[in-house]
């Protein structure tokens, strides 16, 4: 219990500082966990309570992601979303996988690192667009839809990775059955759900919490991945009143997720067996690889490499979903690598997102200057 209270207190201070400086908090939560964990003489240790909180954090993160997903929305500008999505997916998965495999990770480990390497932080990308007042830029739309595309790919990853050695047909039949039940509940119980959400007593929040937990434990009982099922629950609930569900789930998500980040940091051990060369290489390649996919997206969608630079700046940061993948499937070594990648990319990313305007203007001026010099007198 003391561990948890200490963790919460440290996070409160960190949240205050990072909000004040308007920099992302996630890398600092992880760093706090690293420093107070094994490296810091074990002031923080994982125990049953922190484990429960962390699990809740993960489940609510994914539930929240599901609430925001409305597949029918993509129909509006499908070709642009698909083009940028596939560029992002292919470039980063291939580079991520190749880099991890060549640096000595096993096939499965490389696959998980590639997935974590590919998926940018939705939370950090959207916050940076809002805080840096970039919403009106045309690249912003591309970034926002890219995040939706990545979320959809994550769901497919979760399905593939958690299928493991099970009989695939039975596995997918089970998933489809649970999905069917969730959709039927949301569809036929829509009025009931809305009537519950409209109340102003404790019922809406109690219901939201119970629904998420019940879905998670029920899917564990059935042997389908609870991660996928809470996302599906979110998607199903999004057909009723997503804003109300977001409002009621947010307090749980906010608190549990912070604990999740800190205690993920606690499991990370940079001191023993960590290969600094591998960690550094993956982190740097992670930044470079998003530059390649960003530039290609800029050229293909907006016809401008400068647009690509803007897309890059806002998608460098890896965060919550990369960590989620590390926690669900990663070995300690994979976890440490992903932790370092998240810390490096999110700090570099927040810096680049803040100064991308300056960078773009600098490049434009520089090329103008060169053009002037080259002009015959």
């Amino acid at each position: 219990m003391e561990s948890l209270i200490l963790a919460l207190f440290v996070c409160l201070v960190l949240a205050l500082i990072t909000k004040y400086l308007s920099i992302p908090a996630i890398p600092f939560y992880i760093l706090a966990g690293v420093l107070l964990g094994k490296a810091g003489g074990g002031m923080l240790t994982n125990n049953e309570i922190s484990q429960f909180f962390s699990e809740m954090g993960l489940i609510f993160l994914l539930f929240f992601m599901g609430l925001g997903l409305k597949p029918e929305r993509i129909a509006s500008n499908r070709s642009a979303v698909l083009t940028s999505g596939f560029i992002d997916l292919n470039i980063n998965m291939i580079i991520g996988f190749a880099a991890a495999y060549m640096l000595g990770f096993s096939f499965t480990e490389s696959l998980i690192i590639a997935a974590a390497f590919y998926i940018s932080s939705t939370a950090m990308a959207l916050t940076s667009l809002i805080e840096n007042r970039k919403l009106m830029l045309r690249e912003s739309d591309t970034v926002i839809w890219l995040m939706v595309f990545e979320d959809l790919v994550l769901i497919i990853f979760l399905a593939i990775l958690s299928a493991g050695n099970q009989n695939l047909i039975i596995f997918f039949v089970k998933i489809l059955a649970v999905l069917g039940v969730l959709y039927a509940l949301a569809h036929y119980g829509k009025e009931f759900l809305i009537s519950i959400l409209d109340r102003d007593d404790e019922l809406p929040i109690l219901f939201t919490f119970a629904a998420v937990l019940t879905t998670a434990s029920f899917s564990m009982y059935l042997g389908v991945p609870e991660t996928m099922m809470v996302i599906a629950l979110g998607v199903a609930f999004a057909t009723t009143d997503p804003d109300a569900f977001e409002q009621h789930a947010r307090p749980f998500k906010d608190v549990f997720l912070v604990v999740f980040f800190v205690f993920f940091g606690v499991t990370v051990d940079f001191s023993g067996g960590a290969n600094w060369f591998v960690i550094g290489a993956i982190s740097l390649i992670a930044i470079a690889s998003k530059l390649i996919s960003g530039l290609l997206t800029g050229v293909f969608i907006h016809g401008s490499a400068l647009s690509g630079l803007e897309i890059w700046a806002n998608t460098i940061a890896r965060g919550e979903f990369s960590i989620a993948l590390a926690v669900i499937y990663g070995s300690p070594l994979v976890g440490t690598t992903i932790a370092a990648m998240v810390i490096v990319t999110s700090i570099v990313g927040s810096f680049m997102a803040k100064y991308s305007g300056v960078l773009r203007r600098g490049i434009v001026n520089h090329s103008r200057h060169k053009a002037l010099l080259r002009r015959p007198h």
Partner: protein
Amino acid sequence: MSAMALRSLNLPGVGTKYEFETDKGDTVAIFFTKTGAVQMYTLQKGCQTPSAAEMSPVEARRLGNILTGAIIEADQESVEIAFSALADLRITIHTFFVTAAVIGKTIEDLQIRAKTGATVIAVCRHDRNIINPPPTFVFEKGDAALVIGESDQIKKFEGEIMVE
């Protein structure tokens, strides 16, 4: 109307975006973000970088009142709503602090509707709102009345009923 085509768009995880281009080619975009803040961007024709302002919901409403042409005074304010689809129907809503001339009288006594055409739609009394007060409603000292009508009717109300 085609030049002023307003586009509204739902941006997943961010909020709602409204955007339109003015006749002169400038672009205005408003974002209602999920964090509650309202961001307004303006992009001058031919410019590359928009300028932005972030507002709280209250500030945004205030800006809206200014833009609709309402007179904003320190304590009494009015809002004019124009319905361009209904032959440019303009309706004004004005707040008044009751004056000695009406204290102790009912809406019926004052013959507000017959004399001015305006209607009292709400009265704020001790931080409590009385919506649609009945004709028998008696004004008290300290009440604030919300009156709706065309701007001429509001002026008449100010001149004949709510006299100082």
